[in-house]
């Protein structure tokens, strides 16, 4: 019964979405306020209906209703309650439902808080939003219906893929989807602007908060996914340049570029056409990201073909929105009024520099991710494009970007003073050089690039501090005045500096963990000791125990540092009977920002067990940096809410997504 209610609600949502796709747009074309007014209530109704459908599926999972095929495939009655919730989106059908839930949520937010948008723009945006929604409802109902029943209810479910039974994976997809779907708002705004043939600085002001919110969700989602891969996959890597990871990195790069170009548009009314294109591209990459991961196109061209309806549907959606969006762009963009040009050395110029390198880096990832697919389709040759490719392409394209980060905020609008900016950055650069020299001196050789990487990170961090100090006038005025000035700085200034600082923090973590990480892979017998970097781990023995839906083989190690006991680590291997598979649960011990990482291999008949022990210096900084970036984004977002007296403050405050 519950499943049928959910199914029915989803069908109703499609009906409502179809009305919302047409009526408001007609209204906008005819300046008919009644027709335009349809958009608001329908957007809210859509959200209510999809929420009902999602709640219904969740109820099926929580009550372990195995007569629903989707629940049978992905759940098990013995699974802990939290994983019953998370397995709702731990599969293709359910995750698509989560996708439309977030899409409907964003649509409802625009409807509810977009009161100060021009009526036609609002109507068009909501109509475009509803096109996307309709396509997805159709896709779910026609090819991926999560509410299908089995003719005979099985006694027990097949269990969720054990590797997904983890709290990190519970949070990761919703965050990523918030980011992906958040891009749909800027896409809808871009399409609406193209339809109306009008775009101005106010447009950028409305789009920016949404883009910022999407960017923050993506940043957190990617960091979460990376941390999950680090501790769950058992070999201590934090980024594998796996196609699935790249699928989320590409939208992030595009949104980051969009965020920066929207600043130019808002402040200087320039780069309009480019910003529109970026908005379309960002959402296109999000769509590609969603589908490539979910449909398995990337890992398998053949899974794609094995379900022809789904594959064709996905292709149709991609072609419709990406092709349609770009075609509309090609047709209408030339008629948009061009913005002004500016001197190359200026804040705008720096932001263009940022955009150029971000999009170039994004395309290199795109090629590396999709080239194997294309090659296989054309020649049948199978290749793998791995980390070496990305290190050779993405790396060199990102380094100039990082070097330029501290300069951007120090350059003035219109006409900047590069020499002046460089002078102000002397402290930061000096600090970086000293750090490089110290690292070289301490290491006596070793990897040559790593000290420069650290220097670059220090430069980015010190540059962010310099930016704030310069704005407050530290050193030029009395400390008390500088403090007062710093307090008076807009929050967005802090937001920028903190986000750039976070970038440096992440870079520092990446360089240190990947260069100076140490590992030992050995086989140990009880009471034997493994040593690594002045840590001694003694293997105390194996414990066999039963978890809720798995058996667990747990190894206990006592950790000593310089002879003193500092704790114990208990890595384990879990075997899940229902899927005949096992996972490795690594044990982590944090020492400051560094971590000891211990995971188990096979146990041998003689009582010994293979272990991998890693020391990962400063590894936590990688994810901490992402959190710092998001804090910067939050500050920037809150600035726009609180700024009073700026033109159209009401419109801006109304555009804040409620988090």
């Amino acid at each position, binding site marked *: 019964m519950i499943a049928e209610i959910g199914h029915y609600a989803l069908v109703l949502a499609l009906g409502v979405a179809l009305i919302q796709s047409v009526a408001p747009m007609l209204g906008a074309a005819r300046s008919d306020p009644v027709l335009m007014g349809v958009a608001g209530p329908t957007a809210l109704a859509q959200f209510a209906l999809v929420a009902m459908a999602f709640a219904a599926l969740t109820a099926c999972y929580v009550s372990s209703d195995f007569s629903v095929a989707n629940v049978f495939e992905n759940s098990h009655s013995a699974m802990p309650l939290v994983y019953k919730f998370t397995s709702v989106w731990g599969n293709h059908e359910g995750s698509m439902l989560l996708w439309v839930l977030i899409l409907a949520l964003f649509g409802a937010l625009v409807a509810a808080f977009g009161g100060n948008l021009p009526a036609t723009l609002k109507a068009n945006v909501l109509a475009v939003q509803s096109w996307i929604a309709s396509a997805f409802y159709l896709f779910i109902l026609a090819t991926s219906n999560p509410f299908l029943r089995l003719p005979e209810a099985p006694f027990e479910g097949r269990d969720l*893929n054990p*590797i997904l039974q983890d709290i990190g994976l519970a949070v990761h997809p919703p965050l990523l989807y918030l980011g992906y779907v958040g891009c749909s708002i800027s896409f809808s705004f871009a399409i609406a602007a193209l339809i109306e043939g009008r775009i101005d600085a106010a447009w950028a002001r409305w789009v920016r908060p949404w883009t910022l919110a999407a960017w923050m969700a993506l940043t957190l989602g990617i960091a979460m996914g990376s941390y999950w891969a680090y501790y769950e*996959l*058992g070999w201590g890597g934090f980024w594998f340049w796996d196609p699935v990871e790249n699928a989320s990195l590409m939208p992030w790069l595009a949104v980051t570029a969009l965020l920066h170009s929207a600043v130019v548009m808002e402040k200087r009314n320039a780069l309009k056409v480019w910003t529109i294109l970026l908005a379309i591209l960002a959402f296109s990459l999000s769509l590609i990201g969603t589908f490539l991961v979910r449909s*398995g196109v990337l*890992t*398998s061209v*053949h*899974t794609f073909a*094995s*379900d022809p309806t789904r594959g064709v549907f996905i292709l149709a959606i991609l072609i419709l929105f990406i092709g349609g969006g770009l075609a509309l762009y090609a047709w209408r963009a030339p008629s948009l009024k061009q913005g002004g*040009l*500016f*001197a*190359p050395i200026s804040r705008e110029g720096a932001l*263009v*520099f940022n955009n*150029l*390198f971000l999009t*170039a*880096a994004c*395309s*290199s990832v795109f*090629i*590396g991710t999709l*080239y*194997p697919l294309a090659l296989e389709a054309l020649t049948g*040759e*199978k*290749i*793998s*494009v*791995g980390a*070496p*490719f990305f290190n*050779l*392409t993405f790396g*060199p*394209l990102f380094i100039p970007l990082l070097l330029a980060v501290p300069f951007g905020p120090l350059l003035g609008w219109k006409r900047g003073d590069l020499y002046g900016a460089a002078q102000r950055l002397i402290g930061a650069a000096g600090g970086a050089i000293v750090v490089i020299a110290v690292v070289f001196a301490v290491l006596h050789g070793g990897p040559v690039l790593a000290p420069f990487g650290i220097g670059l990170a220090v430069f980015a961090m010190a540059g962010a501090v310099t930016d704030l100090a310069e704005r407050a006038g530290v050193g030029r005025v009395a400390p008390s005045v500088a403090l007062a000035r710093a307090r008076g700085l807009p929050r967005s200034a802090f937001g920028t500096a903190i986000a750039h600082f976070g970038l440096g923090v992440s870079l520092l973590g990446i360089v240190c963990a990947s260069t100076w990480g140490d590992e030992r*892979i*050995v*086989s140990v017998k009880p009471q034997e000791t493994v040593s690594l970097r002045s840590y001694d781990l003694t293997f105390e023995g194996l414990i066999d125990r039963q978890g809720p839906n798995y058996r667990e083989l747990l190894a206990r190690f006592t950790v000593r540092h310089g002879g003193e006991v500092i704790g114990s680590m208990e890595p384990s*291997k879990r075997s899940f009977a229902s899927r005949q*598979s*096992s*996972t*490795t649960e690594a044990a982590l011990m944090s020492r400051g920002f560094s971590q000891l990482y211990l*995971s188990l*291999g*096979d146990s*041998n008949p003689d009582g010994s067990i*293979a*272990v*991998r022990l890693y020391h990962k210096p400063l590894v936590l900084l990688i994810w901490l940096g992402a959190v710092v970036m998001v804090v910067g984004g939050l500050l920037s977002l809150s600035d726009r809410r609180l700024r009073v007296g700026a033109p159209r403050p009401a419109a801006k405050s109304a555009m804040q997504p409620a988090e």
Partner: protein
Amino acid sequence: MTRRQRRLILIGSSLGVLVLATVLVLSALKDSIVFFNSPSDVVEKHVVGTRIRLGGLVKPGTVQRGQQLMVRFEVTDGNSAIPVSYQGVLPDLFREGQGVIAEGALEQSGVFKADSVLAKHDEKYMPREVADSLKKQGHWKDDYEKKK
């Protein structure tokens, strides 16, 4: 600076970045991609020293563990089998009769020396390339496909 010059600088720098990116991508594609081979391919080509990925099933009864985490096993696609040597910890899903991908190079002796072994974590527990080459060799077990 005139409008024209500004525009030229903008277009010029865009082109510059584009060229840089293209050069990087092309050179990286030339040097850093790894081809996938089935045991039959390896027997057929027998290229010693080139880095490749070898994929197939772990031949039952061939896994031998030696000292210091040395492992030897054979990878088969039903028609040919290639002996593989690897030192390290095998992934969780490594099992006899299951799909596996080893990355490394063939040595003069005919042994494939792997420096990484993957047993991929996908829903079907079967690396796609392995499934494809098994299909090609006619040794595909249908029960793997039931799920989707």
